């Protein structure tokens, strides 16, 4: 399962990141790391991007990037 498939309010643990190069680096710098817990907080009114809660702050990213982040639902 990947991050883009999570429903609003769902919590999940990141298992791996498929993105490459600069994008992966950026995601990691922003605290999106394997093992981290994330929660999908909001989805933009037009369906994309999404707003996730990670490391105690809100981060928004497009679904195309979220698809590259594999997760495991916690609750």
């Amino acid at each position, binding site marked *: 399962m990947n991050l883009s498939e999570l429903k609003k309010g769902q919590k999940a643990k990141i298992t791996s*990141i498929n993105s490459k190069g*600069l*994008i*992966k*680096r*950026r*995601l*990691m*710098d*922003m*605290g999106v*790391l*394997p*093992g981290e817990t994330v929660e999908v907080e*909001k*989805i*933009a*009114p*037009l*369906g*994309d*991007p999404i*707003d996730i809660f990670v*490391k*105690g*702050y*809100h*981060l*928004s*990213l*497009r679904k*195309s*990037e979220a698809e590259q982040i594999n997760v495991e639902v916690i609750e």
Partner: protein
Amino acid sequence: MKEIKVAVTGNPNSGKSTLINAIAGTNLQVGNWPGVTVEKKTATIKFDDLTINLVDLPGTYSLSPYTQEERIARDFLVKEKPDLIINVVDSTNLERNLYLTIQILELDIPVVIALNIYDEAKKKGYEIDTEKLEQLLGIKVIPTVATKKEGINELLNVIKDFALGINRIVSKKLNYGDVEESLKIVETALKMNDPGLLNKYPSRWLILKLLENDELVLKETGLKGDEKFLKQAVSQFLKSHNEDMESIIADIRYGIAYGVTREVLKKRDRKHTDLTEKIDRIVLNRYLGIPIFLIAMWFVFKLSFDFSAPFSDWLDSVIIGPVTKWTTVLLNAAKSPEWFVSLATEGIIAGVGAVLVFIPIIAVMMFIITLLEGSGYMARVAFIMDRLMHSIGLHGKSFIPLILGFGCNVPSIYATRVLESERDRKLTAMLVPLMSCGARLPVYAIFIGAFFAKNAPTVLWSLYVLGILLAILLGLFLKKTLFKGFAPVFIMELPPYRVPLLRDLMIHTWHKLKHFVIKAGTYIFAVSVIMWFMLNTPYGVEKENSALGRVGKTISPVFAPLGFGTWEASSSLVAGLIAKEVVVSTMAQIYVTDNGQEEKTEGTEETKNFLEDLKDVAISFFNALVDSFQNLLAGFGIKSLQVEEEEKKTALKSKLQEIFTPLSAYAFLAFVLLYWPCVVVGIAMKQEFGSWKIYGQAILIHSMMAWLVAFLIYQGGSLLGF
């Protein structure tokens, strides 16, 4: 006297600008970093016997740069080697902020943390053990509330004590666990092969970056990512870990940040339903989000134009009226030749005026944009609009400069600075001229009045829509051609809402204005004077034989297939390069032959003496002030369309009806909408992007598009029998 070089760094949204403003006050100098258009703020402050040279670095999340801003911050820290780094840390978001701190510690430069937004953290029930934080990282930690100027003196005292050697700050070399082994291997290899590098760069940082295979560092050092010693250093690792080195090191850094945070921060555990959460629930709501956003944008738009318009009109009337009049009176009294009076009033004063009338709108717009950014709403605009904007290759934030373009394209170009990446900035700037600005309205008004009086709203609306549709098409086209390649992804923090300080907004607006008046002012002034010479050389000849008339005549065949291949129309279009409303005034000058009466009517006013005029200026300013506030409250509608029917305009209209057909008139309007972005826009582009290249491209693309569209309208319409 002792001097010290201090760099200020921190995450975006950590209150860094406010802190800088609080420290530097009026000493703040704003410029650009060399070669790029990223704002550079510096200040030199005297504190007791110490001179502190402060450099504010662009906000950054990491020392592996992602945006141009971050690249600058990284380059400065690594290459300029400041004596001391002030690291501004958002106390309400300790862990992610410390991730940057940990990277800064790798540089082996003494660090002082300004634990900012401390009041908000306390309000949230956070307790931060600053002494423990100092111990763990080997640095100084000063709690600050930049908005209230709290902790600023303590911060300055720490800098002073450090500079005088009273207080030593030795940053801790943090233990990176298993990776330390690999670091040693690389260090030994470098010492043997290329010891110069270890002096050129902060050594620990360099080694880590090499292990991470950081592209930028590899490029700068000329080393290869698969260098033998690098492979050797990581081989152990990659066997036992299932990740690449970059991920492992990022993980270690975040691990330390997490550990430190856990030790120093006590949170009273509450569910995070703070104010930001509550606002976002409404503002980003699935159904309410877009309506609220549209209303907000309407207010932004209304505020920026209705509020500034009366002031622009006032400046305009003062310049055309009393200033011109009294200059003429003075010059005549000094027995200046007629051509000189004309140059002084129609060339120079009109030129200065052209600069001045931009001031109110730029001031108001910059204020609003800074407010949107500082409050945190800009990030929400991007969040809401990204889906739409992304489909034409833009970023969600591009929406703001584009919508402001409907008022005036010039501040829109400046507003592209809200975008992080240069590519997005340039692409947005290319599309801005398609937003039909206020200066095009007088042209529409006169033609619509002459040809489409019955369908005025539809025709006007169609022009705006035409611009938007072409912007979409051009966006799609440029995305595939000129701006092909790496499109930055959208990975953006949604910062908490905060009330920005009026002081910060004012400082920022003031610097922008100063910049515009000094830099753009000179160019606009020069262009106005050149235009005067075009219109008036040789002096006293018929308009047809002036330089402008001759240029018009030469190029007029180009416009023949569009239905308006006359020297009059072509000359007006050339004159309109300076600002599109000039098309109308030039046409009036050319078509409505001077019968001398214009001049005479002004004569009646001249009976007023200087003081009376001054009084009028003051009264009209007061009226402008009242107007601008009334506009905010008054009905919604485009005011500028209600053009007063002056005699001259009526005369121009009937003349236009003789020369244009409704079809060629519409083709002409489409052409005016689309062609050659005005010179002031060009100057703004030059200022923002450092060269004339973007303006050159815009001129080519837009003019070609204008010609093609007008051609299709005129020829297509002719075929259909209009």
